[in-house]
């Protein structure tokens, strides 16, 4: 990238900080979930729920503090990301609380009420968000930890193998006394840091040292090495942890970042070929995956005379229709088990606020993703660009994989809907992700310091003979 061509969409001077826009949007981001909360209470108990004041204050406080910290430590950050994250998180809390009201799926065996826990995790998430903004003055600092990130990410990804499988997937580590964590959520961010650092250094070698073959640039074997390693690793995760979602995310992230770094379409072709090959190979060996694909192709099939979870989710969506049954008035609890609050929370969204509401939520995700990529476009350093596109891409893939899985667009994988679904690791990691994106956007949009007076700019001295 040369610095002489102006490719950033945002000028270097005079960009407004947009903090007031953010504040106004945050007000909505707090008010909407509060109304939703009251709505659920009215529908279920015909009274305004007792917790509404606490909930309003809690959410308002989190949003307010976050806003003040952004104002102070990242004044030029993107104004949309924080309100969107707050709104999604707030609505997620309402939906989880609403599902807590169903006795059948809130038994002690299924973990009981989960909204209080989720509120605590959200608070921790916002705390981490604040921490990142305050202590990470410049995202380029992360570049120094490229190889440490790689080690940490690998440890995080591999660690669940040593813990027992829960709910059919080996994606958890259990720490006695603390609870269980899903390290994949954190690995997603850390691996993006590693890729960004690695690719920034190696991208020229990857992009240029290649032979042309049938219109494609074939990379050299030694450059192809890392992608093959990552491919193999993602397959191993899938096989040993039976976690289709994370491996897809992990691999897709790498392909996107490679493509952006090298500007070579051939990487995408290789990526697609490898992932298709891998998927077919695994699908033939792994019964878990076969079951998922079978359920995807036959969503309404009966199993032992009973309706499957997949079918129940489809019924939820169908019964929601265009405008939904109204908050608190759906029957998504029929999905049963622990899934309605986590993997299947979109089914509740679809049933209770309908197609209109679900589309609005998807648009919020879309907006957040595109703001992330816009940040990448605006970033002035390659590391920032790569990191921003990596994080946004990972977020987009996760949203697509989860929402596509639940609505039956693609086979279902066990992942959480960012911010919306119940899950401590997820909400904390995603707040951190948004914080890093905000930090990059702040750096990108910050006006350049006024140029120091240059001696060359002085009037040419006329030397008289």
């Amino acid at each position, binding site marked *: *990238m040369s610095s002489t061509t102006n*490719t950033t969409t945002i000028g270097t001077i005079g960009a407004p900080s947009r903090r007031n826009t953010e504040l106004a949007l945050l007000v909505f981001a707090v008010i909407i979930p509060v109304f939703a909360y009251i709505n659920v209470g009215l529908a279920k108990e015909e009274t305004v729920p007792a917790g509404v004041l606490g909930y309003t204050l809690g959410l308002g406080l989190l949003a307010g503090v976050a806003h003040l910290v952004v104002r102070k430590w990242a004044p030029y950050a993107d104004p949309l990301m924080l309100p969107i994250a707050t709104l999604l998180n707030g609505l997620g809390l309402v939906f989880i609380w609403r599902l807590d009201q169903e006795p059948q799926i809130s038994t002690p065996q299924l973990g009981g009420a989960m909204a209080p826990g989720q509120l605590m995790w959200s608070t921790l998430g916002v705390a981490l968000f604040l921490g990142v903004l305050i202590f990470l003055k410049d995202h380029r600092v992360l570049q120094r930890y490229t190889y440490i990130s790689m080690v940490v990410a690998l440890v995080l990804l591999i660690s669940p193998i040593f813990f027992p499988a829960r709910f059919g997937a080996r994606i958890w580590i259990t720490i006695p006394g603390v609870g269980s964590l899903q390290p994949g959520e954190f690995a997603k961010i850390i691996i993006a840091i590693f890729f960004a650092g690695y690719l920034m250094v190696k991208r020229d070698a990857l992009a240029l040292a290649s032979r042309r073959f049938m219109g494609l640039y074939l990379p050299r074997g030694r450059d192809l090495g890392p992608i093959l390693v990552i491919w193999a690793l993602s397959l191993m995760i899938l096989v040993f942890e039976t976690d289709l979602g994370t491996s897809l995310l992990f691999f897709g992230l790498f392909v*996107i970042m490679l*493509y*952006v*770094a090298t*500007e070579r379409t051939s990487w995408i072709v290789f990526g697609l070929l490898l992932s298709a090959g891998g998927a077919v190979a695994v699908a033939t060996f792994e019964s878990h995956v076969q079951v998922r694909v079978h359920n995807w192709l036959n969503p*309404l099939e*009966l199993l032992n005379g009973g*309706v499957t979870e997949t*079918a129940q989710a*489809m*019924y939820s*969506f*169908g*019964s*929601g*229709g*265009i405008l939904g049954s109204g908050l608190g008035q759906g*029957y998504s609890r*029929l999905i049963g088990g622990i899934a309605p609050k986590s993997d299947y929370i979109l089914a509740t969204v*679809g049933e209770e606020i*309908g*197609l209109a509401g*679900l*589309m609005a939520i*998807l*648009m919020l*995700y*879309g907006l957040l*993703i*595109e703001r992330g*990529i*816009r940040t*990448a*476009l605006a970033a002035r350093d*390659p590391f920032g*660009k*790569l990191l921003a*596109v990596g994080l*946004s*891409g990972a977020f*987009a*893939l996760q*949203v*697509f994989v989860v*929402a*596509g899985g639940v*609505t*039956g*667009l693609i086979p279902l994988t066990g992942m959480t809907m960012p911010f919306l679904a119940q899950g401590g690791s997820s909400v904390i990691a995603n707040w951190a992700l948004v914080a890093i994106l905000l930090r990059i956007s702040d750096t990108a949009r910050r006006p350049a310091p006024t140029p120091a007076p240059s001696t060359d700019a002085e009037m040419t001295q006329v030397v008289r003979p």
Partner: protein
Amino acid sequence: MNKPLRRVAIFCGLLVLALLVRVNWVQFVEGDQLKNDTNNRRVAIERYSTPRGNIIVDGKAITGSTTTDSGDFKYKRTYKNGKMWAPVTGYASQAFDANQLEKLNDGILTGTDDRLFFSRTVDMFTGSKQKGGNVVTTLDAKAQKAAFEGLGNQKGAVAAINPETGAILALASTPSYDPSTFAGMSNKDAEAYNGLLKKNNPDEPMLNRALRQTYPPGSTFKVVTASAALENGLYTDVDAKTDSPVPYTLPDTAGLPLKNEGSIQCENVSLREALRLSCNTVFGKVSADLGNKKMKAEAEKFGFNNSKIDTPVRAAESIFPTDNRPQNAMAGIGQASNRATPLQMAMVASAVANGGKLMRPYMVDQLVAPNLNVVQQHTPQEMSRPLSPENAQKIQSIMETVVKSGTGTNAQIPNVTVGGKTGTAQHGENNKDNPYAWFISYAKTDKGTPVAVAVVIEGSDTLRDDIAGGKLAAPIAKRVMEAVLEGEK
């Protein structure tokens, strides 16, 4: 690096777009289908979330609702005199879905039908709960009672129609079942339901014999054969001698004879005598002389070979077969592949009684909204004209002779003109099973013809001759006709 970044942005946009398209597909295009899927428990939850509307007979509800504490479902269906009314109502069970009127009018009874939109909207604004509408039937409680009690412990069915409108007055089937016993979803309900299933109960109590079971109609079909003879001009005078040898040899066979019951005198008798005595030879020959095509055409005018007789509960298809000459001759006396439902034979009697005009049978008169507004009103419809008025008169006159001085004397009612026809249908290989006793009839007063009825009794092991229908079935038909006439006064 910005060109690939823009492409990634487009790619991510496409991912979100794909999701938007998908949710539109699932929630908008497939929405209704998923919403009303039989396995979608919400359908049942909705059905039992409010007291269900009722099925009404003679202004009184024969169904009801009671609250339960069985999980999702707040209300449970109850039935008054469930065994007697089961062939009319069908059942609505929390665990086993619903059938017949309960199922067909589910939208009205639950209150979700589109035609109740206005009423629902009003409810929404006034804050009152959604209510179900009612289904008003055409049935006559007294006639139904007479039919059900008349059948008693015997296996059989009764269908009675008002010939002038096609309104169904009685629809009884025995042995029957009480839908109340499995309206809930407890283990006891499941046990009751399983006990009624065909595999566990050879008597098939849940089979609606009046509508859904076909039998060989036996000699009662001779009314149709006689009609075909008149309509096609084979004979014009019912009192003129016919060309009927005894014994009559089935056509295209090597001397296979068609026999009459006992030693009745059937040689060259008139149609009136032939029907009075129930001569197989005469009607077998009529059917053979007319040929399969004409016989079939006449039977179809009476409603045979019609798979879409919806009352609105769909009746099983009655069959007059396409067949070779000897089989066609046998079909002409209600044997061979000839099959008819009790409703079908009641339609035959009603068409004759109604001057040759067959009215479409129906049993739902009105659908009523919760606010008592009529949502749908049935208007009687003509289905076909199997007989000209003159020929109808002639058939009436010979059917009346059957009751006056023939095999059907058991159906006589003082001061009322009754026309009828007995039948005893053989079934089983080589006639080894017990025959079915049939009787079809109508009753006429000076005010009109208010009732036509068909009775069938399975397994009448007492009698095998042709008057079994007269002995066993005619008294039941008589009681049903009397009950209707009683109400007319």
